[in-house]
């Protein structure tokens, strides 16, 4: 039995092509994935991300526990209304999930991936300490509104909160009644993600659509996040790799040194010894499309493989992320596409910044 978000009927009415996404019946596109991609880069688009798992953490021990549980340090969040991106690691430094943690008044909120929901909840329960309450919030829906015109076109729906939202810095958020609105996203564009009661979601979706915000599906979400150089859990990273092998060293807080966290010792060891592999961006220098699983070659020898690949609608070329041997420092590599070795340029993601080539 596949699960449905509170917006399922809206997607079907909009003619979406629905697909099974890790047990959820979700919209892949509403006609053209490429047009939806462009709508987000050039104007505004919105995504139903209600399948994501929202978990509230409260209790007197919550802060200390999260500082142990997460690789980034929640103590960096000096006041409520701020959030940060972090990985959650196992003792070997392997990535269990990536998530955003929000500091609220009197507690914390985590938004984790839906594909890892069960494993994450089991892990939280195993690691949980006395004085910490963990509560999943499946009754909440989540809509991501993204694009250079996202805030302007959402102003009417945001209503009295519009001004406060406009003043937020990236990773800031406000709570407006039962709406939780964060200046976050997964596209590299300006915009926000709104968490709201499931029974309010359909009305919100319609109001936003009437404000000229295009519905966009998981297909566009994937090409947008890849252009923005953002990893996808389960594809670009999983438990077999560490943040240091996943271009996420910036999200690991080694300071202060006295803060221990799960995986810290393993990461310190790896940092000292050097990482065996790195995650890099690749841009195809010929016509074609990069795909997950294609082999990366250097001097004719395989040195790694694509973890994500797509045709970039913004740049009009094939782009991808690849995990390759750390010793390779060449800026020109090749990718094996159906038996042909085609040249790729290695670069540090993102590929696209504010709608243009980075």
């Amino acid at each position, binding site marked *: 039995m596949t699960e449905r978000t509170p917006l399922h009927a809206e997607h079907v009415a909009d003619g979406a092509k629905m697909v099974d996404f890790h047990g959820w019946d979700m919209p892949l596109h509403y006609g053209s994935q*490429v047009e939806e991609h462009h709508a987000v880069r050039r104007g505004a688009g919105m995504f139903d991300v209600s399948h994501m798992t929202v978990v509230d953490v409260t209790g007197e021990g919550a802060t200390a526990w999260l500082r142990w549980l997460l690789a980034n340090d929640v103590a960096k969040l000096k006041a409520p209304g701020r959030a940060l991106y972090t990985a959650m690691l196992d003792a070997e430094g392997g990535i269990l999930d990536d998530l955003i943690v929000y500091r609220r008044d009197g507690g914390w909120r985590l938004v984790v991936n839906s594909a890892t929901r069960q494993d994450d909840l089991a892990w939280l329960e195993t690691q949980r300490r006395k004085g910490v309450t963990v509560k999943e919030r499946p009754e909440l829906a989540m809509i991501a509104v993204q694009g250079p015109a996202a805030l302007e076109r959402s102003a009417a729906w945001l209503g009295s909160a519009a001004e406060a939202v406009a003043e937020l810095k990236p990773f800031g958020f406000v709570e407006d009644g039962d709406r939780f609105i964060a200046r976050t996203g997964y596209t590299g564009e300006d915009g926000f993600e709104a968490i709201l009661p499931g029974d309010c979601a359909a009305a919100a979706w319609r109001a936003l659509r009437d404000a000229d915000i295009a519905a966009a599906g998981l297909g566009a979400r994937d090409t947008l996040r890849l252009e923005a150089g953002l990893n996808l859990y389960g594809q670009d990273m999983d438990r077999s790799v560490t943040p240091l092998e996943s271009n996420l060293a910036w999200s690991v807080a080694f300071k202060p040194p006295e803060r221990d966290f799960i995986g810290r010792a393993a990461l310190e060891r790896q940092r000292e010894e050097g990482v065996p592999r790195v995650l890099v961006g690749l841009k195809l220098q010929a016509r074609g499309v990069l795909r997950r699983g294609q082999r990366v070659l250097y001097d004719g020898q395989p040195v790694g493989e694509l973890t994500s690949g797509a*045709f970039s609608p913004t740049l009009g070329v094939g782009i991808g992320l690849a995990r390759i041997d750390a010793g390779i420092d060449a800026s020109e590599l090749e990718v094996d596409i159906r038996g042909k070795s085609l040249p790729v340029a290695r670069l540090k993601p993102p590929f696209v910044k504010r709608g243009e080539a980075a």
Partner: protein
Amino acid sequence: MSNIPAELRYASTHEWARLEEDGTVTVGITDHAQDALGDVVFVELPELEIDVQAGTEAGVVESVKAASDIYSPVSGTVIAVNDALEESPETVNEDPYGSGWFFRLRPSDKAELDELLDAEGYAEVAENDAH
């Protein structure tokens, strides 16, 4: 329901073939195929003057979703390719039976056309494919 013109012949691998007045055969992919693929972003066409066999690979179409081989529905020599698809692959989605054609052949055996599916036969294939 996808568009399946009655005057064309079809391969079960979702290519269409049209016998032109000059005896050549134009090849493309069906409306059902372009719809299933989603936005087409890249097309690799056969080289001019090469000989292709019926049912063998003669090109590749890549959509946002996946890469798919294009099989020639009949045997023959490639006498024209639709270069415009290089710049505008989305034409395959917009006009699969018209300006979204892939290549044209001088067939070596016109009788092969009769072995292909007619519109009704292909409609059944497309229908089963949708499930």
